[in-house]
């Protein structure tokens, strides 16, 4: 077992990538569970893509500084997130259609900006991330995201949960009127922070993967929301470590390797997880049939 994990101890870049990835998995777990419950998995993805133009422009202007790239990413990500919803409503488009227009525009503009640098910017890195080249700023950002998300989600957990599961009740129950909007703002703020923090490791195309995929897998392991969050954190960290090892041994692109491992975890969970997986449902049907006969 230790032999398998040896690369994490032998190579500093692997240690850093593992630490950064684990922090992002911790930050993503509660956010992902709520995103999935709110049926916003794809909206999260769209916002992830939307960081590209800001990141590319900032990288171009600052010569690739991590800090500026992060700020640029946060700027356009937030802008798209804040404008896509209201714009779709103003144009009477379904909300997901609005998000599609905005994130495709963001991707296209981002790619064009990145190519203007004449090869100064590594477009691959912006699109697919570079978890193995994660620097101190990006690592610190991941740890801050994990810490701030843990604190923020603890603060708004109750109103956010009620708002997610029964928004009408939250408004009509006689509790504080500000609770719902505040909880939502905190949640989306934390989501933006974590998406931007994940951007360095996984790139614009897959940054939301570490948030969403473990949360989807967690549904097959746990019934209650707190347990889903714990499962998601655990499965996310497992996926990061597995992905880094796959990438290390097969020389595969690291972001893609991590996301592939997370997808494999989702598939395995949906097949054999203890809650509502194909296996438990088949067993349940079989025992019903036995009882009937």
């Amino acid at each position, binding site marked *: 077992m230790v032999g398998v994990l040896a690369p994490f101890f032998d190579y500093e870049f692997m240690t850093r990538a593992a630490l950064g990835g684990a922090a992002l998995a911790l930050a993503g777990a509660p956010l992902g569970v709520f995103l999935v419950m709110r049926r916003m998995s794809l909206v999260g993805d769209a916002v992830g893509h939307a960081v590209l133009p800001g990141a590319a422009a900032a990288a171009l202007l600052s010569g690739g500084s991590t800090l500026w790239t992060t700020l640029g990413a946060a700027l356009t990500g937030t802008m798209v997130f804040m404008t896509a919803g209201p714009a779709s409503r103003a144009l009477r488009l379904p909300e997901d259609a609005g998000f599609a227009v905005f994130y495709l525009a963001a991707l296209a503009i981002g790619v064009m900006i990145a190519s203007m640098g004449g090869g100064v910017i590594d477009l691959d890195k912006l699109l697919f991330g570079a978890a193995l080249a994660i620097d101190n700023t990006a690592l610190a950002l991941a740890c801050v995201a994990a810490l701030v998300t843990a604190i923020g989600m603890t603060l708004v957990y109750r109103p956010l949960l009620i708002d997610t599961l029964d928004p009408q*009740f939250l408004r009509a129950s006689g509790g504080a009127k500000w609770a719902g909007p505040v909880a939502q703002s905190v949640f989306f703020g934390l989501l933006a922070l974590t998406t931007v923090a994940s951007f360095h490791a996984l790139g614009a195309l897959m940054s939301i993967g570490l948030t969403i995929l473990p949360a989807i897998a967690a549904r097959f392991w746990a019934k209650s929301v707190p347990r889903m969050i714990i499962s998601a954190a655990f499965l996310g960290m497992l996926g990061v470590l597995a992905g880094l090892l796959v990438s290390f041994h097969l020389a595969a692109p690291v972001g893609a390797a991590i996301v592939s491992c997370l997808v494999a975890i989702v598939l395995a969970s949906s097949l054999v997880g203890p809650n509502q997986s194909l296996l438990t449902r088949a067993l349940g049907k079989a025992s019903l049939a036995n009882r009937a006969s």
Partner: protein
Amino acid sequence: MAGEQSPISGSCVWDAPVKRHRSIAWLSQSPSLRPDAPLTVRDLAAMGLWARLGLFGKPCRHDQDRIDQALGMVGLSDLENQQVSTLSGGQLQRALFARLSVQDCGLILLDEPFSAVDTASQTKLLEVIQHWVGEGRTVIAAIHDLDCARQFPLWWELSKFGAILRRSDDKPLSSMSQPLRAVSGVAQSS
């Protein structure tokens, strides 16, 4: 009346004699609870404590007793650890009534409470309403089934446009200067 929309004209005044009864509990016709919500029946009932407990308050022994009592009253004590997603329509409505009970409000508004409910559950829910009234709460329900509405001590039969067609007595309801629109029956018990 629930305070969701401002009245077109007139006003609603709700002034409860007991301070903890000041707030209003409200159950709409189509509850916004997600059918796949990962909650147990007990969690759902406990949600009724939100207004009082806020962000961090811990439910005390008394709160737990109230949840037990509410679940017992709607006949869901056996199912308290079952997931909400597995309940039938009638059971879900009973669980939502348990949450209303836990909310401990003086005025309870029900919009079409029996529309998706089997007869057994309806009988149970009517008992619960009687119990609430016995505790000194006011219950106002909009009900399409006129026979059901006439089981309430006080009922008004309204036309589609809000005109009163028939009523069970002549007492004025001063607080209801703008009666519910577009309902065919309003029943109140107090």
